[in-house]
């Protein structure tokens, strides 16, 4: 079986599959860790019970999501060696230290304080517990910093040399870490994580408001989430635009693929809204385009010339249809998020934020939009880097392990079966936790069983919570 298959294609499929499953969990837990820190700070500051209820409510969800992120993340850290050993050998001296720093500064910090954060509130006191929460939140952000630096170096490598063994080595660590696309990618990804979380929190709040618009917890979380959506979504679109301009400067071929610019345009490139990129024919079929707008957006001048893929050897073309469409899906999600944010501002101004069923249904429908945008965005940037692993320097076919196709096919099938079985169950448990509204006297992961035994019913809890406001 699988003898006729291409081992490199299978390895790429396996990396894409395991990475796509992994990325949604950190994207969610980066934002959620920060949200938990904010909730605990608000509780310590104001003493209002609703904040500790929300904290404990989201903490249980965080525990499950974080666990899934950890186990799927360990897979990633070993897959560089198992499936991309030539890359590990050649780029290890540059990429390896960045990832080692991620482990040392971020993973240990998160893991070391996670236990106290989850189970330690009554053992260490409020202030020390808040410190633990803060360390977990900071850890998730430091982790994003290092891994995005490593990824950005693969996109826009700088500060390196090549040694006698053919390995990339660092000539200037500062230039390696702060490579040209890193700041843009970092801002874009962290904002994406915050938005992803805000949209989930907002959707859960909206779901419970649809059933009872007087519940204190859902009102607070919905309001907070909608502030995030209305403020951060427009900033994210600006950050994305800046990231795009940076990509145009350093990875112009990726932009050509994203825009579907097979042909060069001497006097102003159109903006192709939709169409079907035909890689073999080298043109976009059924294109719906706005003349000159492409040059306006990317060069800020309607007549600016734009080179197309016809200036690039075909063997260096990325897969255009995937890059083109994943980019449009991401942008579409961003526009919908901004629409939701502005709609919420309008309802807030009218005083119907907690009553508008239309807004709540829209927010519920938007629950997965952050995840979709994150996945589409990563597919855009990673596919757009192809056919290279280290852009312009190391081709993907030269980066793979010397493995036979049957080995990779077997592991790919194993990953597919295990991930669907395990993570489907995990998502069901998460949805089950979210389907319950936060209760009065909500308990964290440590104490929920005794609290339920104490007989606090949801209805009584909600009433007490309402009275407490």
């Amino acid at each position: 079986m699988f003898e006729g298959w291409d081992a490199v294609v299978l390895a790429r499929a396996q990396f894409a599959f395991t990475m796509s499953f992994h990325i949604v969990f950190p994207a969610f837990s980066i934002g959620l860790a920060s949200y938990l820190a904010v909730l605990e700070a608000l509780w310590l500051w104001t003493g209002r019970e609703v904040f500790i209820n929300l904290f404990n409510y989201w903490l249980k969800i965080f525990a499950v999501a974080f666990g899934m992120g950890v186990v799927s993340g360990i897979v990633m850290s070993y897959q560089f060696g198992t499936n991309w050993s030539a890359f590990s050998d050649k780029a290890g001296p540059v990429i390896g230290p960045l990832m080692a720093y991620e482990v040392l500064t971020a993973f240990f910090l998160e893991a070391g304080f996670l236990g106290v954060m989850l189970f330690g509130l009554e053992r260490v006191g409020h202030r020390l517990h808040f410190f633990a929460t803060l360390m977990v939140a900071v850890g998730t952000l430091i982790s994003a910093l290092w891994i995005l630096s490593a990824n950005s170096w693969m996109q826009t490598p700088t500060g390196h040399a090549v040694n006698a063994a053919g390995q990339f080595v660092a000539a200037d660590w500062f230039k390696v870490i702060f490579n040209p696309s890193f700041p843009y990618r970092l801002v874009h990804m962290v904002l994406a994580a915050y938005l992803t979380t805000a949209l989930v929190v907002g959707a859960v709040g909206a779901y419970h408001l649809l059933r009872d618009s007087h519940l204190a917890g859902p009102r607070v979380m919905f309001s907070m989430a909608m502030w995030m959506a209305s403020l951060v979504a427009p900033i994210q679109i600006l950050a994305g635009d800046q990231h795009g301009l940076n990509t145009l400067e350093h990875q112009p071929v990726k932009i050509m693929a994203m825009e579907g610019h097979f042909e060069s345009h001497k006097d102003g490139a159109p903006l192709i809204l939709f169409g079907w990129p035909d890689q073999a024919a080298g043109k976009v079929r059924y294109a719906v385009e706005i003349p000159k707008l492409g040059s306006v957006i990317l060069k800020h001048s309607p007549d600016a010339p734009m080179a197309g893929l016809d200036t690039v050897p075909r063997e260096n073309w990325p897969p255009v249809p995937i890059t083109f469409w994943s980019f449009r899906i991401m942008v579409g999600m961003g526009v919908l998020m901004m629409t939701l944010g502005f709609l919420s501002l309008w309802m807030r101004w009218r005083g119907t934020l907690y009553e508008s069923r239309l807004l709540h249904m829209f927010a519920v429908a938007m629950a997965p939009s952050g995840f979709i945008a994150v996945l589409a965005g990563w597919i855009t940037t990673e596919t757009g880097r192809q056919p290279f692993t280290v852009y312009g320097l190391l081709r993907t076919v030269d980066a793979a392990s010397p493995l036979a196709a049957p080995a990779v096919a077997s592991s790919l099938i194993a990953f597919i079966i295990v991930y669907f079985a395990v993570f489907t169950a995990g998502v069901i448990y998460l949805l089950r936790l979210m389907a319950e509204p936060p209760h009065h006297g909500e308990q964290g992961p440590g104490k929920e069983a005794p609290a339920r035994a104490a007989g606090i019913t949801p209805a009584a809890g909600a009433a007490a919570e309402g009275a407490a406001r």
Partner: protein
Amino acid sequence: MIPIDLPTIWAFIIAFAVFVYVVMDGFDLGLGILFPLFPRKEDRDVIMNSVAPVWDGNETWLVLGGGGMMAAFPLAYAVLMPALYTPMIAMLLGLVFRGVAFEFRWRTTKERNKWDIAFTGGSLLATLAQGIALGAILQGIRVDGRVYAGGWWDWLTPFSILTGVALVIGYALLGATWLVMKTEGDLRDRAYGLSWALLFAMLGAIGAVSIATPFLHVQYTQRWFVWPNIILTAPVPIAVAGVTVLLLRSLAHKYDYQPFFLALALFALSYAGLGISMYPYIVPQSITIWQAASPANSQIFMLFGVAVLIPLILGYTAWAYWVFRGKVKPESGYH
């Protein structure tokens, strides 16, 4: 005798990270292996709760071992990982099942049994795979230039199966002595019983691996049995005998806190034995630590981080253990 240069320092750092992993995740995985012997839900809750706050930190050392190796010895990482492809993938999948079981089993009543099985199956698979990987490394790996040159079943030999089974026994012993330390009453008494049985099994496993290893390669024989090396290597088996006596005594006198640390000492000695066998190779008989080392500026760049951060990490990890110190009471579960 051992030169103090960057690759040697890094070899010790990576060895340290892997050892801390073996020590800390060893008892977590051991608990998973022993889970079927404790069928009562209350016991299982206590067992889970005894490691729930710390398992994630324990597992992070595995990421440091792998990530650190890629950074400090990229060639070794690039050769070993494809050579150990199947055991590595099996370990990762085992750790997925084991890891999610910690959270999932508290989220469902109907399917709890399913996640308990996943906890045991995952722990067993991950342990077996780690032990097999160790055996596969010791028996040697075919290398051509900078690339692994063997097939994808080379790792499977009677010796690697032996090391796999040995590690299962070893982790189970760590798990049993951990329970002796962290639990009370009937649960603790049963853990004592298991510790006895597992200690004898462990001694048998150490003996079997020690006898089999010199037959793998002449380097191992010379390292251990040829004069004057024997002056340096003889203390290891003598220390194993000494620790065994102390461990038997602590089990007989029911000193709750001693057996776990003495079992760790047995692990440390076995681990030192492995180091003596392998040094200075990182891929036995093929690649030395100097051949595999990344350039000095990569190793120096990370050394600053390690020097500052590892003590800090050990500090707050110790604090986390201190917060959750003492016996785990059934009613005061963290979950």
